[in-house]
């Protein structure tokens, strides 16, 4: 068949398809029109293949290729209801994922909580050790923050309700940023994730040990126990996601390193999604509950313990049932 005849026969189809594409790209296609889209797209692909194999001129082929490319972009669009997906992920997907990656989670928890507890115990028994990891100014600042005589506790001791909102923003920015960095630096053959896990573990451990030792224990522990459940778990999970990236690079198995990395990143980025939700909750608790001085220390301990149990139960038990929401 001559090219001119071919063009003549199918010109109308191509123009119709281009119109459909225009509507779809602007997001204004009605459902009646789009019912024929899949068939029209396949038809166009067939025309393109025909034109190529018959050696028609490149003007025609380029034009068909351009249409096919646009059609492909619309046909394979990811159009999933993000809200429903997110809900299913929080209710079941995330705890399942954490359990599926239990090796990395365990390793990250050991690194983070291990270094935290060890450093805390060491500083408690050898008080001078705190100056090995923190400058004296910083230690003094910490002491000032958790001074039992302060009216309100937390980062700024003279806080009022306007501060709560400001601190909420600060905690989001700071903590989620740290979690993202812990994850991303796993790409540096794990050195980055190891560094962030150990660094944060050592610092928090040193502060906790020092404050307990000088007798500010009650203000400190009642402040941190509530949001710590979400915050510390989230940092450990972000570290686990980073370690997974690192493992894909060090031990790629039967894949090329780039491919192994791609597969690992697909599941670890979902972990990071869950971590982000955890840290948002933690920031909310930290800004509005932990800094409250109305509740007595005992109430805070009870609520904090309940929150820790909630986090553990969520990660271990949620989404196990057959009919868990997907």
């Amino acid at each position, binding site marked *: 068949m001559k090219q001119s005849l071919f063009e003549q026969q199918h010109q109308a189809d191509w123009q119709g398809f281009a119109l459909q594409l225009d509507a779809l*790209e602007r997001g204004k296609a009605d459902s009646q029109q789009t019912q024929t889209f899949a068939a029209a*797209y*396949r038809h166009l*692909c067939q025309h*393109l*293949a025909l034109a190529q*194999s018959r*050696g028609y*001129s*490149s*003007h025609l082929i*380029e*034009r068909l*290729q*351009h249409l*096919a*490319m646009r059609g*492909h*972009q619309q046909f*394979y*669009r*990811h159009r999933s209801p*993000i809200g429903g997906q997110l809900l299913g992920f929080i209710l079941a997907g995330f705890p399942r994922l954490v359990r599926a990656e239990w090796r990395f989670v365990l390793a990250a928890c050991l690194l983070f909580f291990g270094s935290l507890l060890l450093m805390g115990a060491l500083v408690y028994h050898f008080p001078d050790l705190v100056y090995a990891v923190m400058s004296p100014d910083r230690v003094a600042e910490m002491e000032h923050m958790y001074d039992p005589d302060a009216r309100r506790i937390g980062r700024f001791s003279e806080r009022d309700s*306007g*501060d709560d*909102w*400001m*601190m*909420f*923003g*600060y905690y*989001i*920015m700071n903590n*989620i*940023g740290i979690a*993202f*960095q812990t*994850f*991303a*630096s796993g*790409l*540096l053959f794990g050195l*980055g994730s190891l560094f962030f896990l150990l660094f944060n573990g050592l610092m928090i451990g040193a502060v906790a040990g020092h404050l307990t030792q000088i007798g500010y224990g009650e203000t400190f522990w009642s402040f941190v126990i509530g949001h710590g459940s979400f915050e510390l778990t989230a940092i450990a999970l972000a570290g686990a996601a980073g370690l997974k*990236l690192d493992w894909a690079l060090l031990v790629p198995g039967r894949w090329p390193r*780039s*491919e192994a*990395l*791609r597969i*690992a*990143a*697909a599941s670890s*980025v*979902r972990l*990071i*999604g869950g971590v982000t939700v955890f840290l948002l909750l933690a920031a909310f608790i930290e800004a509005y509950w932990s800094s409250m001085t109305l509740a007595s220390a005992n109430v805070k301990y009870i609520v904090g313990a309940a929150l820790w149990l909630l986090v553990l139960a969520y990660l271990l038990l949620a989404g196990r049932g057959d009919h868990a929401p997907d």
Partner: protein
Amino acid sequence: MPPTPSSVSATSPTLLDTRFKVETPEGIDLILRPAGVIPRALAFGIDLLIRGALLGALYAVLALFGQFGMGLATILMFLLTWWYMVLFEVLNQGRSPGKQVMGLRVIHDDGTPIGWAASLTRNLLRFVDMLPFGYTLGIISSLRHPAFKRLGDIAAGTLVVYRDEAPSAAVLPEAEALRAPFTMNLNEQRARSALLNAAKTCPARAVWNWRAFSLNPCTSPPNRLNNRSTASPVAF
């Protein structure tokens, strides 16, 4: 299943430029043109300027609202730092404003539009690409990758490509068609039209195509009579 960059069938000569072919389930090849370091750096620069201007304006306005405003500004800064690229890429067909200006877009490396997971991955890992300073790792990675991928792109399986504009309709000169002095087979016709096309858009590429044509024994036929059936006379 990573699409190989040079899955070239026997009928088309090996591409010597950076074009990236993806075979779709419909049995056709999509031809993508990955963008190199310079246009991407410019696009990032534009995005950076936009974000800087937005942040400056936000702080100026929200500072009036005291501590509530500062809290809000911090949250917005967090969104701008970590989510600006993700939101634009997913919701605006792979184009942040900078990429829009530079004529680029991000897609999965199988040619499909980018989704949330891939976009989040590539933009979180941007932190590593920036190390130790000024995108050093990212630049090294994309200079030595055949499709110019930085580390984040490799991990997310994404590709930054040029957006192709619609090809303009061909204008054939009003002239009487001449018969070629000899019959050209399909490969020869293709080589000739590819050469003419390339000469129009990029003279340097034309030279390369011409060398491919003359050096590659597969494209210069041993016996022209074999292909008589497909070789219709061409009109120059």
